[in-house]
């Protein structure tokens, strides 16, 4: 169970980890506690699976990458094989099976459009793939994965 202190710490850490010397001492001061306490709780929260990742989250477009969301309509009996094939690519970070005529949805980030096309062509040719839609973003209104605890 998360304590009230853990929740305050996670709420703060979700929005801002200081880019400064002794960043956890800065957080500790904001929370009215000691650096050692913050480090001890964060280590526990990480080890117990509450924290997926700490660090910088980069804007893929600002780094020169091209992204798209891909919807695939796959015959049920080939679904697992196609999902495994999709998972092989490091450029594909999220791959979800969803309740829809398009039953696999994945995100693809590549340094070039050529690489994107190469990957999509390969996946489209997998046995059992009926249709594949590439749905690139035209405008981002929000990207902010934060959970108020």
């Amino acid at each position, binding site marked *: 169970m998360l304590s009230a202190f853990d929740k305050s710490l996670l709420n703060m850490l979700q929005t801002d980890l200081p880019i400064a010397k002794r960043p956890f001492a800065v957080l500790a001061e904001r929370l009215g506690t000691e650096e050692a306490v913050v480090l001890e709780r*964060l280590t526990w929260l990480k080890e117990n699976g509450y924290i*997926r990742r700490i*660090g910088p989250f980069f804007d893929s477009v600002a*780094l020169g990458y091209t992204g798209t969301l891909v919807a695939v309509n796959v015959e049920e009996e080939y679904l697992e094989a196609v999902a495994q094939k999709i998972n092989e690519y490091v450029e594909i970070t999220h791959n979800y099976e969803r309740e829809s005529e398009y039953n696999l949805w994945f995100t693809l980030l590549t340094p070039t459009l050529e690489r994107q096309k190469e990957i999509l062509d390969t996946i489209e040719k997998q046995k059992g793939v009926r249709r594949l839609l590439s749905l690139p973003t035209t405008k981002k209104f929000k990207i902010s994965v934060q959970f108020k605890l």
Partner: protein
Amino acid sequence: MLDALDKKIICMMQDEFPLVENPYQEIADKIGISEDELLKRLTSYKETGKIRKMGAVLRHREVGYRSNALCLWIVPKERLEEIGSFMAKNPEISHCYDRVVVPDWQYNLYTMVHAHSREECKEIAARLAEKTGLTEYTMLFSVKEWKKTSMRYFHDEHK
């Protein structure tokens, strides 16, 4: 433009963040630069938008958000700005993107909804539909997470 050192820093910053008193010093040592140089470059990435967030992302299931749905909307072009901004203000929505429309798929606004249960996801979408007046939408609930990882930028060049 990013130079070779920028790419190396970006690559290394995607490794596990050390939970120690001087984490930036530890990372800088691995890269082979001073802590001050690392802090200076990271600050500039943040200021120029290359870093959109410095902090933690939680595992949503572990913190109680057990259900997520990709909620897709058909939004008339002339209302896109207004509705996109409205959706973005809702805390239950983590992502809100406008995407291209293709012949077989007419939805253009994509919102990721997180809640404690499937029922709650549906209630959130119904409330958003009512507030916006949008009538054409669908909810795609996830039934299996086949893969979820963090992106590794410039990985090939440095590992």
